[in-house]
């Protein structure tokens, strides 16, 4: 009897800490014999779909990607931050405006909370030969209020 009550007590004490903290699953954005790109959403609110059409060590310029998510924020303005790291040290940091108020460049600019964002098209990347190794890429999309729209931890493995 005493043991059961003690177990109940411990269970009751631990219960509030349980709830959250589960990470989103790791997805594959593309995979090839030489290059593999994995990503995991780092936005606690949602996971999202992302894929790269060509996957090759010899990276072509203007890669075609697909990105789909449901907006939790209005995106009258939208910005992208990219950070490239290898072995924990930063190689490249980059910030890029995607939507700016007056002149919506993309069809999804100006969409509101609850709407879909589905982008199929090229990204403005240079062509390059990816050196062998493992890289971490942190990507974050955020709006004019600095609220996260989407966030991803990507790993690029080149062999």
């Amino acid at each position: 009897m005493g043991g059961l009550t003690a177990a109940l007590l411990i269970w009751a004490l631990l219960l509030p800490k349980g709830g959250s903290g589960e990470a989103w699953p790791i997805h594959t954005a593309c995979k090839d014999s030489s290059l593999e790109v994995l990503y995991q959403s780092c936005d606690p609110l949602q996971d999202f779909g992302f894929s790269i059409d060509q996957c090759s060590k010899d990276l072509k310029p203007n890669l075609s990607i697909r990105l789909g998510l449901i907006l939790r924020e209005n995106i009258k303005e939208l910005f992208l931050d990219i950070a490239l790291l290898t072995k924990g040290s930063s190689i490249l940091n980059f910030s890029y405006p995607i939507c700016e108020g007056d002149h919506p460049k993309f069809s999804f600019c100006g969409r509101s909370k609850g709407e879909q964002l589905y982008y199929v098209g090229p990204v403005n990347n240079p062509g390059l030969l990816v050196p062998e190794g493992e890289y971490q890429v942190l990507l974050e999309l955020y709006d004019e209020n600095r609220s996260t729209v989407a966030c991803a931890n990507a790993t690029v493995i080149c062999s």
Partner: protein
Amino acid sequence: MMPFSHLAGTLIPAMTFLSYLRPESWEPCVEVVPNISYQCMEVNLYKIPDNIPSSAKNLDLSFNPLRHLGSHSFSNFPELRVLDLSRCEIQTIEDNAYQGLNHLFTLKLTGNPIQHLALGAFAGLSSLQKLVAVEINLTSLEDFPIGHLKTLKELNVAHNSIHSFKLPEYFSNLTNLEHLDLSNNRIQNIYHKDLQILHQIPLLSLSLDLSLNMIDFIQPGAFKGIRLHKLTLRSNFDKMNVMKTCIQALAGLEVHQLVLGEFKNERNLDRFDKSALEGLCNLTIEEFQIAYLEDFSSNDIGVFNCLANVSAVSLVDLWLNKLESLPKDFRWQSLELVNCRFEQFPALALPSLKTFVLTANRDSKTVVDFELPSLEFLDLSGNGLNFRSCCSHSDFGTTRLKYLDMSFNNIIVMGSNFLGLEQLEHLDFRSSTLKQANDFSIFLSLTKLLYLDISHTHTRVVFHGIFHGLYSLKVLKMAGNSFRDNFLPAIFTDLTNLTFLDLSHCKVEQVSQGAFDSLLRLQVINMSYNNLLLLDILPFKYLHSLQVLDYSFNHIVAPKVQKLQHLPSNLTLLNLTQNDFACVCEHQSFLQWVKDQRWLLVEVEQMMCATPLDMQGMPVLSFRNTTCQMNKIIISVSVLSVLVVSLTVVLVYKFYFHLMLLAGCKRFGGDECTYDAFVIYSSQDEDWVRNELVKNLEEGVPPFQLCLHYRDFIPGVAIAANIIQEGFHKSRKVIVVVSQHFIQSRWCIFEYEIAQTWQFLSSRAGIIFIILQKVEKSLLRQQMELYRLLNRNTYLEWEDSVLGKHIFWRRLRKALLAGKPQSPEGAADAENN
């Protein structure tokens, strides 16, 4: 085990009870503004929450699986203004679902897969102005039961499956409609009859967005005689021919603003040439914008022929390459060219142009002079341009310029002092590199300037007259520059109308006392991200308009509280976050000041301690005064105890003999002895004996009784008998006062010898020697016995100094008090102890 299970048995029900006793009754929602605004986004609600106050005006229920809206679902919230039901998986909305929401202003239904929408679903929404019905499976406007929403201003039905552009009959009720967003639907054909209602009830201020519908056909004349505020047609055509015929079919439309083009990610058009826009000649357009057309090329200026009478033209992200020789009879008043990839800067000459914006053009680096005599507004930002000499009226061909933005360019040489540009009110050089800004008062002639931004222009202020002449200036931004010796001098003397000053990131270490004296209208000053070690409020003391003072991100350890007493009278915000505060008792008064002034301080919770190590990263507010009080108590207690101890020591020293008396050391008076000591001295030394010895020993504490021959010897008895009877017999000790006369006096030597003999006979008398005068050795040797004794024993020596006397009397008293020493050696021992 039993007590533990008892404890658990009481705790579990208590905890269960407490877990239900939540402080906020609106769980799981979040109260944004009490009684007004509630956020319940994505909290897994299956029904409308009933714990929100009925006074709520703003309710966000998005991303909850509500699924079904029955009638009178929101009758608890009669005050609602904004209701967000985005992504609530709503499939059915029953009649009168929103009944009672008579004040509702905005209703968002985005992303609900609505299957059944009752005819009376929107009944009652008598004040609704904005209805967002994006992605709700809507197939036609005809079936959308909104005909009674007379107050509606904005209807967004984008991203649905609407095939027909037919504006239903009920639009005649929607006389307030200003925005109709039909983008991203499936409209392919637009017929004359679709717009019939706009012929009957003209909605003059209507903005219509038809973007992202793949339009094949517009019936010629469909828009004839119709007036719109704005018509947007982006990414609507996949063939140039279709685009051409459709634009021709818009003939007769009168529109304030027409937007054509594509989106970067929705490029459908196969090709483009100037003939596509020929049809625009038959439209009446006030403002024209075309954006993101890949093949748009204006090598042939004829493309703009039909736009000669337009007042504003905006060309965004087009391959223009060149834009030369616009005919002078064009009436354009405003021209905007964004990211148009000019290989050469366009040398414009247009008499009508008042506003010219040319931004994000990175391909040409040098400016060609314009001839724009009416120009008032010029924005050349973000082009990476170099200016060899800036600026005078000859550069732009105008003397009317009021607004000049040269920000985010490359190198700008300040070679001219704005000659002919005295009308300027707004001047922006942000993030360009300014050269020669210190050579003379470059802004001297700009007496009408209201706004000046020279932030991050690599300017190092050396010349104190740099801002001379700017008498009207209200806003000065000069973040990210520097000053000579990192000392901010008095350079703002002419800026008497300044209200906003940004001096952040300027590496300032010191501020001149009179730096801000003339800025009597200053309201906001930003001194953040500098290297200030002191928070000196004195320069701001007389700025009675000052409301905001930002000192964040400096190296202030702790300002003097006395200085903070002089805060400007109207100050409402003071930012001291991210400084190197020392949370030590030394600055206790400042730390207490922080607590007292928390209403004034910005993000007071974010003010962190930098030192000492154990407080590093802790909030300043967490500093406890009690730790200082503890220290104070400890310090005062120890000081007090040291005082007490030393006082006791002093007292004990001073009243040593009184204490001895109290402790019962009275034995010297208790035995058969009448006298404490018999004094042997030469009559030559009688003065000393009477005035010093007798006075000190008999009248002091403890009082000693001395045996003195002139007083105590019984008359009529032989001197020798008196010496024996009165002197040695009745005295405990013998004091021998040795002096020159003593040695020479026969009586004295006699007495001394008897004393020695007596000492051998009786075992009690101790002899205490007092050397009154230094005695010559040769003289002393005559008395071999005395000489030997004095060499071997400690004796007292009379000194005339105050300290010497004090020590002498203490030693003598001690020696007299010492019990019953057997020999002079014993008396000496007692003294040493």
